[in-house]
């Protein structure tokens, strides 16, 4: 199974001299399971443009029916803004399935995604795309994609419902966890706070702990865990809790707890320069002590074979 990073930046594309080495495109990850010719993609940030350009040059793409399974973590702009520039959508031979979470049945994925392919945002309308595109509104659970590929979906902790994925095939497992921050008790536990409620404090504590335990089980045994590492722990503590992004230290702890063999950090802060990422990689990167995971700061173009 090959995993290729086409976009690793968080929040907004950041082209420029300072970000050229790690890359400025927002999230897009290609997963190519072994020996079946299938293409799974996680998220459609600006990095999906390069992936699309590459896909249509691959042998057999335009001759026969080519299939793409695109899994959206959520529909915040930085994770879907590359979709209109994904060239396979303009080929009639492409069959695409787009999966993603929705808040309510009244607001389907097709409506949310199709919204940016409308006159006021983009010159090409959704109905004008040549590819056959099917939308699947996801809730938590297993997704049937065929060819012995198992995909599981679970909710992460973000201001919008957001999915983490677990892709298994041929004994290899890759998991994704972006955008997310650790579940924690958001109910006050300070008895002097006027809004304090003992019952909420206790239940909030228990619910957060159990949600973290569920995630650990979901990631268990991963050969590769791709995780939101936007902040440092100090940055997270300085007023960024609740934004829905993790600190590098959170990601490392999650990988260690779940027994992941390799951790790839993504969703790099848009303000982070290549030099700063190099420095963070020097501090946190490499093999963790004992049987801990190898920690990688993902950069655009990186390909990992599991």
């Amino acid at each position: 199974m090959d995993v290729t990073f086409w976009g690793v930046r968080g929040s907004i594309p950041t082209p420029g001299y300072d970000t050229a080495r790690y890359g400025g495109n927002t999230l897009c990850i290609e997963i190519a399971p072994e020996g079946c010719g299938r293409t799974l993609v996680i998220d459609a940030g600006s990095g999906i443009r390069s992936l699309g350009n590459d896909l249509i040059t691959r042998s057999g793409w335009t001759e026969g029916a080519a299939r793409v399974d695109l899994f959206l973590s959520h529909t915040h702009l930085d994770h879907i803004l590359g979709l209109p520039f994904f060239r396979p959508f303009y080929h009639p031979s492409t069959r695409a399935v787009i999966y993603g979470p929705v808040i309510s049945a009244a607001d389907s994925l097709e409506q949310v995604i199709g919204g940016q392919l409308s006159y006021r945002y983009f010159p090409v309308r959704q109905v004008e795309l040549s590819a056959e595109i099917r939308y699947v509104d996801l809730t938590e659970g297993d997704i049937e994609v065929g060819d012995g590929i198992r995909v599981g979906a679970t909710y992460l902790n973000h201001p919008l419902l957001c999915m983490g994925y677990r892709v298994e095939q041929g004994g290899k497992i890759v998991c994704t966890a972006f955008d997310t921050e650790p579940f924690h008790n958001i109910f006050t536990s300070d008895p002097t706070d006027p809004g304090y409620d003992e019952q909420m404090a206790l239940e909030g504590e228990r619910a957060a702990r159990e949600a973290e335990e569920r995630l650990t089980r979901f990631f268990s045994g991963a050969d590769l865990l791709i995780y939101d590492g936007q902040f440092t722990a100090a940055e997270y503590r300085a007023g960024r809790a609740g934004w829905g992004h993790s600190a590098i230290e959170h990601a490392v702890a999650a990988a260690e707890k779940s027994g992941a063999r390799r951790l790839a950090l993504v969703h790099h802060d848009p303000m982070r320069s290549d030099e700063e990422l190099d420095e963070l990689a020097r501090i946190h990167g490499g093999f963790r002590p004992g049987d801990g995971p190898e920690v990688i700061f993902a950069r655009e173009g990186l390909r990992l074979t599991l």
Partner: protein
Amino acid sequence: MAQALPFSRHRPMSKVRAYILRMAGLSTTTLKVLRVCNEPDTSANTLNRVISLDPVLTGRVLQLVNSAYYSLPSKVSSLTRAIILLGINTVKNVVLSFALFESFSKQDAFRAFSADGFWAHSLSVAVAAKLLAAEQGVPASEREDYFVAGLMHDIGKIPLNHLFPDDYRQAAQWAHSSGAPMYEAEQAVIGIGHGEVGGVIAKRWELGPMLAEALSLHHEPPSPRHNGVRLVGVVALADVLTHTMGAGIPGGGGDGEAAGHRTLEAWGLSPESVAALAAAVAREIEKAQVFLEIAGRE
């Protein structure tokens, strides 16, 4: 002497099912809900508190968490847990979308009984159920389930009252004059009881078997000593107690005085403990009224 049964019209359940899909929050709490949910820095505690004053919005949030989270070992019946799992923003958006999904005036929405009266009774049963759960030794972290079940126990009355206002008023009048419980009057006049509707809502909103039982069987609970059914039993007791305290639904009929006394006896409650509970419930209702009142003044 009991009055003759009114003619039953056997109203269609399909209308009730359609109504459940577009059921909105109570007008009593709307102003406060909108204010809290539109504030950018709402705390989890305040959000929880304002939602937990409204049986419909509480149900809607639980519906979302239960329909989305398939891998949880059991259904979520606590708002606190739902807010942790879904996050403040998602919960605020869901609540806003249902707070004003349909705009009713208090008179329009609550034809045979008032929104304020329904709200006060629901909250009274919620508070009483939570206090009784504490008395029964239920751990603090699990008492919210009892509050939620109490809050939502009569939710089945909302569709009946809204869809069939004339029938409902007739049922209430008959219950009042004959002394029959309201659920019997509903059955007699409309052909559908609020427990049955509550069961449909619980199923439709995926609230889980315990809450479903509390919503559908609170007028015919299994024996208090029966294993594993404490939620419905406690809610039934809380309902009887609130009627004893005079916190029944205005104009909505009683729920059977004799049956109420039998329930109190079965639980072995003394007049002193009933009085203590009544005082505690009254304090909580007053606090909630002040909480809502503040929204109106700001």
